[in-house]
Structure formats: structure tokens, C-alpha cells
């Protein structure tokens, strides 16, 4: 009996604030919302056929793919590079670790505001570039550089968490393995790909899942830095859901898009979980 009482608050919370709303979102996705009367009318799945006919949606999905893909690839590779660089005992190493983690302490919106400030046409980045004689672009006002900017700001803010996780994993690799490899005459590249990478692969999987799901949910960064623009070049799915539901009052269609986002997260998580047998090394 005690067990049920102990888990009851968490259980009720999940039912009321996660599962019930998901159920309602499914219900809304089959209805049209009348903004004036607040009534729902069943529309036989026309929100779903709208998905196919929405001329914006392919662009939004492409932006989502580029943003999430870019963030994940950079987050994992830069995170791993920094962790390897920081995984030694030299004076000042803890200070460097603190520096790479520090953006996590700055709130998302504050961090994004500063980048918006630095990336303006007459902002700090272009100011620094002009010192060395480069005429920098108006970063946030052109499609390609706007996307590069949001990806960069997001990676720099969030990679510190991955660095900490990777460092912990690197320090967990038994030293004997390295010594044995050295004795066998393996060079550092072989040691890295033959020992380090397989040994930390469970952590790579975990951070991979967390980073993908996090990138798919980045909202404040887009809303503050580019508002999805210019055009729809940085309108990722999350931002599109917000626009449809709360700016254009398309509750039904917004819910349909929201469910699409949920299905992406589910599919990616399950996929990564299934693939773990293929590439995650287990000590046996």
C-alpha cells in the first residue's frame, strides 16, 4: 500500500499534465476550432490532409532537419574534442573546464539576447571583423548565415553539459587498456578509435538522445534571435507549432503539427535505442 501512496503524486502529475494533454491534442487534431465561439467541430481528419497541402511545411521540416542535425553533429564532435583536450592534469585545466561550462549558467534568453546583440549588422562580431579588414555579413538577416548563427549560439550554450558527461566517461576508461595498447605499439589515432571511442559509446548514445530531443525542442533561441526568419529559413517545427496555435489561432492544425513533433521524438528515441546493439560497446 505504501508503494502506491509514495508514487501517487508523481503518477497523478504525469496523468494530468502529460498524458491527458496528449489525449486532448489528439482530439483537437481531428477538429476545427472556431475562434469566435470557442467551439470544436469534427472535421474528419482534414488537418492531416492539410499537412500534405501546406506549402510552408516542407521548408519548415528542412529547417528543422538542418538545425537539429547541425546542433547534434557539432555538439557531439566539439563536445568530444573539448573533453579529450580537457582530460589531462595540467595547471589551469579546471579553469578551462569552468569556462566551457559557464554559458549553461547564463539563462537561455539572456544568452540568446547577447548573441543577437553581437550578430547585428553593426554589432560586436562585425566590429571585430572590421578590425582585420573583413566586411561581415548582416548575420541574422540572410537565410544561410541566420541558420548558421542560431546553430552556433545553441551549440556554444549547450555543449558544456556534454563535455562534463564525456569527461566523466573518459575518466572511467581503465588505464590498463591504454598501457596495453602502448605496449603493442598502437599510435594515438588507433588508441582513440580502437579503445577510447568504443569504451565511451554508451555515454555517446545517452548524450546523442538528449541532444537530439533538446535540439528538436529549441524554442526560445529561435523566438528571440530570428523569429523564424528571414522568411521561414529558421522556422523549426516547434516555432511553427507556436505560430499556428497561438498567433494564427489554428488550434486544430497546431495540435496536428505538435503530434508530428511528438512522433519525431518517439521514432528517434526508439531508433537510437534499437541501434545501440549495433554500435554501443559492452564489456563482457
Amino acid at each position: 500500500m505504501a508503494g502506491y501512496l509514495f508514487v501517487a503524486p508523481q503518477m497523478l502529475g504525469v496523468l494530468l499534465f502529460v498524458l491527458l494533454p496528449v489525449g486532448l491534442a489528439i482530439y483537437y487534431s481531428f477538429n476545427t476550432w472556431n475562434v469566435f465561439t470557442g467551439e470544436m467541430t469534427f472535421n474528419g481528419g482534414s488537418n492531416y490532409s492539410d499537412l500534405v497541402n501546406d506549402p510552408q511545411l516542407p521548408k519548415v521540416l528542412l529547417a528543422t532537419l538542418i538545425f537539429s542535425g547541425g546542433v547534434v553533429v557539432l555538439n557531439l564532435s566539439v563536445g568530444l574534442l573539448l573533453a579529450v583536450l580537457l582530460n589531462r592534469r595540467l595547471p589551469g585545466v579546471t579553469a578551462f573546464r569552468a569556462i566551457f561550462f559557464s554559458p549553461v549558467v547564463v539563462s537561455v534568453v539572456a544568452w540568446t539576447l547577447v548573441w543577437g546583440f553581437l550578430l547585428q549588422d553593426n554589432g560586436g562580431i562585425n566590429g571585430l571583423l572590421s578590425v582585420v579588414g573583413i566586411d561581415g555579413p548582416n548575420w541574422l538577416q540572410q537565410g544561410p548565415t541566420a541558420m548558421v548563427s542560431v546553430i552556433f549560439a545553441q551549440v556554444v550554450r549547450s555543449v558544456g553539459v556534454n563535455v562534463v558527461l564525456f569527461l566523466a566517461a573518459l575518466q572511467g576508461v581503465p588505464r590498463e587498456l591504454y598501457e596495453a595498447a602502448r605496449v603493442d605499439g598502437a599510435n594515438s589515432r588507433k588508441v582513440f578509435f580502437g579503445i577510447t571511442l568504443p569504451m565511451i559509446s554508451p555515454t555517446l548514445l545517452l548524450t546523442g538522445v538528449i541532444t537530439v530531443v533538446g535540439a528538436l525542442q529549441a524554442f526560445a533561441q529561435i523566438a528571440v534571435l530570428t523569429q523564424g526568419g528571414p522568411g521561414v529559413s529558421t522556422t523549426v517545427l516547434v516555432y511553427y507549432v507556436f505560430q499556428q496555435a497561438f498567433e494564427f489561432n489554428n488550434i486544430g492544425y497546431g495540435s496536428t503539427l505538435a503530434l508530428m513533433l511528438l512522433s519525431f521524438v518517439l521514432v528517434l528515441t526508439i531508433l537510437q535505442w534499437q541501434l545501440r546493439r549495433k554500435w554501443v560497446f559492452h564489456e563482457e
Partner: protein
Amino acid sequence: MKSDVLVRRGVWYLALAVLCLPFVVPTVWMVASSFKPLREIFASPPTLLAKNPVVGAYSEAFAFQPFGRQYFNSVYIAVVVTVIVLLVSSLAGYAFARIRFPGRNVLFVIVLTGLLVPSETTIVPLFQMFKRAGMINTHWPLILVTSFAAPCVLATFIMRQFFIALPLELEEAARLDGLGRVAIWWRIGVPLSKPAASAVAILTFMSSWNLYLEPTVYLTTPKLFTLPQALTRFTDAYGGNMWNVQLAGASLTVVPVLLVFVLAQRQFVEGIAHSGLKG
């Protein structure tokens, strides 16, 4: 041989120094620029430190909108949420790890689904639910959803992992002394779980502190705003950003998170030292 090592160290320091630029420059620039008069902010070539530091932007931040009130809102909501999450996740995590009851695994999987559902999926229905309950333009949605949805589920998972790893003997001794479940959880489990609890506290505080979509959707009255929302409202009559004021406000938002990190980190170390986990 010796010089070879020195060169390698030099390369290591140089690489790190270059790599850390994008990580420090924005924060330093943010704080430094908040002390500059507006015209100096866009000076070309850019200056790092203000020539004649002024604190005008800070007082302007508090005069422009109820910034003190908004600051308090963010702090109190994050504290309340963190306390609730610590309690709820500690109870649930303990039960999922240590109490055997039918359906335990099924219930745990149901709870875990809370981690997979993006908050953007549930925001529209939640908005309608809270509207019906008369809670729009109050802090209730921010407190309730954060306290029970994804951040709490993650916390429950962390607490469960922690309690699973605790030695059983500690509890058996307590049971022989005639303590009940609740007493064992409160007197043995909770004090021992400080290291996990401080991790949970940091994560929960941060996720409440960073909420942006939710306050944007639920709150319309400026004095109810939280900090992230308030920061984006420092704009002049033409919608242009009041950069110096915005950067002053943004600099101030760093303080509580820094404090939480410093406090929780000490707890973390103490927790390990006092809980007998070390040896």
C-alpha cells in the same frame, strides 16, 4: 625531449585559449557593455571595457518595468518548483527503487513517458485546461506543470537510480528498530540522498528559470512576468531594443543561478563526505 613536452603543452594551451573565446566573450561583453553609455556600445572599433563606466542602465531597468517584481517572480517560482520536485521525486524514486508492489514496473514506464513528450506538444491543451480552471494570467500553470511533468520525471529517474545503489543494510537496521516506511524514507533515505538531490535541485531550478514558451503563453500582465519574458520587453516605442538596459537586466539574471551552483555544489561534496558513500 624536455622541449618537446613544452611545445606540446604550449599547443594545448593555445588551442584551448582559442576555443574558449566564443564561450567567454558573450558573457564578458554582456557585463562590460551594461556599464557603457548607449553610444559607446556600438563604438567602432569596438571597445571591451567602458571608458567611463555608468550604472544608469541598471536603474533604468527597474524604472522601465516592474523588474524587481519580475525578478522576485522568477526566484520564488523556481524555489517552489524545486522544493515540490525534490519531495515528489524523492518519494516516487524511493518507492520505485525499494518498495515491492504489484504493477510497479508498469507504473514506472508510464511515468517515464513524461520524459519523451515535448512541452510544445502539450501546451495547447494545457492552455485550454488552465483557461477552464481560471488559472490563465496566474503563476499556477508555471508551478504545476514544471513540478510534475518532464523535470520531475527526470528527477524521479535520478532518485530511483540513486536509491537502487544504496546498501540495503541501512534500511534493514531501521526496520528492526521498528520504523515504518515513511519514517525510513524520511530519516534514512532523504538524508543519504543529498548528492542526488543536489543534482536534481540544480536541474530543476535551471529548467524553471529558463522557461520561456510557457510564461509567454500563460501571462499577459507585466507585473506577473518572469525574467526571460521581461528581458525581451526592454524595447523603445518603435520596437527597437534598448540594448544597454537589456544587457544590464540580462547580467542580473545570472546571479541566482550562480548562487544555486555554488550552494548545491558544496552540498554535493558534503553529501558524499557525510553519507558514508565514500568507502
